[in-house]
């Protein structure tokens, strides 16, 4: 059997065969790589009939940095620092994923303090990621104001995290074997202040977008993704939960201290964009709950179990570790050949897998629905390309 390898040009030429009635003409249009709603450099080749999307072909690679190849020439301590350039809105969780993989493979046990702090930061980061997403969704649907409201509240949280971490976007905090620094003395109080500040803001979010009739019209029954399709197309995170599959690694395979806190996993029913929207807004509330429960009980201890030198050597074998970022499952697959550098390091990025739900979701729908549905997927393009 011969295997044919095609190209984008051939694909577009094939697909451009005219069909349908003689008085309409289907045409192709490039959405991206520079487009206000693709949030970065995602390029979608759309086949349109009027405003209806007949095909949606994602073209990737505009921000491909080959992190996996670079990591093959780096030791494990260095690999961590590349990960926060993937999904820059879940950078701490990305760090944690690598740290978790290395710790599990090398058999390093971290103390309770580290686990508490990691969990708190992961949840804070989930909140700030969802804050940005919330604003961007509003902007995609034509309301510019929510974006600045989202950013405003994210700034407050960023300030709190900056005090400890020193960065605002690509936060490097978690290392294999612990953390880079201990939390700032003000941290606990400022997080408490933030929670007090943000709770009423969430209600304001509801007033501005959630209860807005236009938003509901734009999101309800748009981009419906059935549970079966979501599973088959590899969706995870809020996308999968929006489709009604109650799967959350924090509950199903607890890591950190998630098994010691009380929280709920919001699950949608229909699987439309509205459900995904609602799941994320609700997740912010749950994350606040988790942080609140942990904040007062951070146990004393070291922030690094032992000073690891850069030469961590993992035993030979294949190791897989995963955790739930703000967008879904981030898996780290390490193949080690007993050296201090990974033989092969692969990231299962949540956005890469979530992206493919787009075409089944919006086939035959309007461009405007495509924007809404894409926004409800909450894609971060550097994470797709890696």
């Amino acid at each position, binding site marked *: 059997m011969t295997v044919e390898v095609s*190209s984008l040009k051939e*694909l577009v030429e094939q697909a451009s065969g005219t069909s349908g009635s003689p008085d309409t003409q289907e045409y192709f249009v490039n959405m991206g790589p520079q487009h206000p709603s693709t949030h970065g450099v995602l390029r979608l080749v759309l086949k349109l009939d009027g405003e209806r999307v007949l095909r949606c072909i994602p073209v990737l690679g505009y921000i491909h940095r080959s992190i996996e190849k670079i990591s093959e020439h780096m030791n494990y301590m260095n690999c961590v620092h590349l990960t926060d350039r993937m999904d820059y809105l879940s950078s701490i969780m990305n760090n944690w994923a690598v740290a978790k993989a290395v710790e599990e493979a090398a058999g390093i046990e971290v103390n309770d303090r580290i686990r508490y702090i990691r969990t708190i930061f992961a949840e804070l980061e989930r909140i700030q990621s969802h804050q940005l997403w919330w604003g961007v969704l509003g902007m995609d649907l034509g309301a510019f104001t929510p974006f600045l409201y989202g950013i405003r509240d994210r700034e407050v949280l960023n300030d709190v995290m900056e005090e400890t971490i020193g960065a605002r976007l690509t936060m490097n905090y978690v290392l294999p074997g612990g953390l880079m620094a201990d939390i700032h003395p003000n941290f606990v109080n400022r997080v408490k202040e933030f929670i007090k500040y943000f709770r009423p803001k969430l209600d304001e979010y509801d007033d501005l977008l959630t209860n807005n009739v236009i938003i509901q019209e734009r999101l309800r029954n748009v981009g419906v993704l059935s549970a079966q399709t979501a599973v088959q197309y*590899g969706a995870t995170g809020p996308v999968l939960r929006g489709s009604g599959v109650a799967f959350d690694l924090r509950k*199903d395979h607890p890591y950190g201290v998630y098994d010691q806190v009380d929280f709920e996993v919001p699950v949608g029913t229909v699987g439309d964009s509205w459900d995904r929207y609602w799941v994320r807004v609700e997740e912010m509330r749950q994350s606040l709950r988790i942080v609140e429960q942990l904040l007062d009980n951070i146990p004393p201890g070291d922030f690094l179990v032992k000073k690891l030198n850069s030469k961590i050597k993992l035993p030979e074998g294949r190791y897989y570790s995963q955790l739930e970022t703000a967008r879904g499952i981030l898996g780290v697959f390490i193949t080690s050949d007993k050296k201090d550098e990974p033989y*092969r390091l692969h990231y299962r990025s949540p956005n890469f897998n979530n992206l*493919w739900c787009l075409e089944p979701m919006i086939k035959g729908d309007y461009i405007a629905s495509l924007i809404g549905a894409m926004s409800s997927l909450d894609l971060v393009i550097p994470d797709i390309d890696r």
Partner: protein
Amino acid sequence: MDRETLQAAVCQLDSSIRPLEENADRAAVVVEAAALPAILRRLRDEPEFSFAQLLDHVAVDWIDRGQFELVYHLYSFKHKHFLFVSVFVPREDPRVPTVCRLYPVAEWQEREVYDLFGVLYEDHPDLRRLFLEDDWIGFPLRKDYQDDFMLDRPR
């Protein structure tokens, strides 16, 4: 089902399935390339396993052995268990049947592996490069990839 029992149970399915010899932290089996789609279908459909999701698909270039290892990460929401299915294909002629009829997401995961390793997926509906340009020469994640212009080889 814990790791060992799962691995043993999967090996019971077919005589061609054997456990992975190397160390792995999850249940791991090795299958023949030709038998892959059939075995994955059974793993997906049989209620005992019900691996509903293909979480990931990774290739590893074992250049010393002259082989590519293709790892399929399967996950079952029902039983919450996890399985590595490995296929070893020769480096000179890396071919494997596609599984994207079973798991639609495999279409793109396989395209990624094709793009970076040059593994050819038979019967794939749309085998194209995913990240790199269509006229890119070579497969960058192979261990012997040389590109003097783009890649500074480490010492």
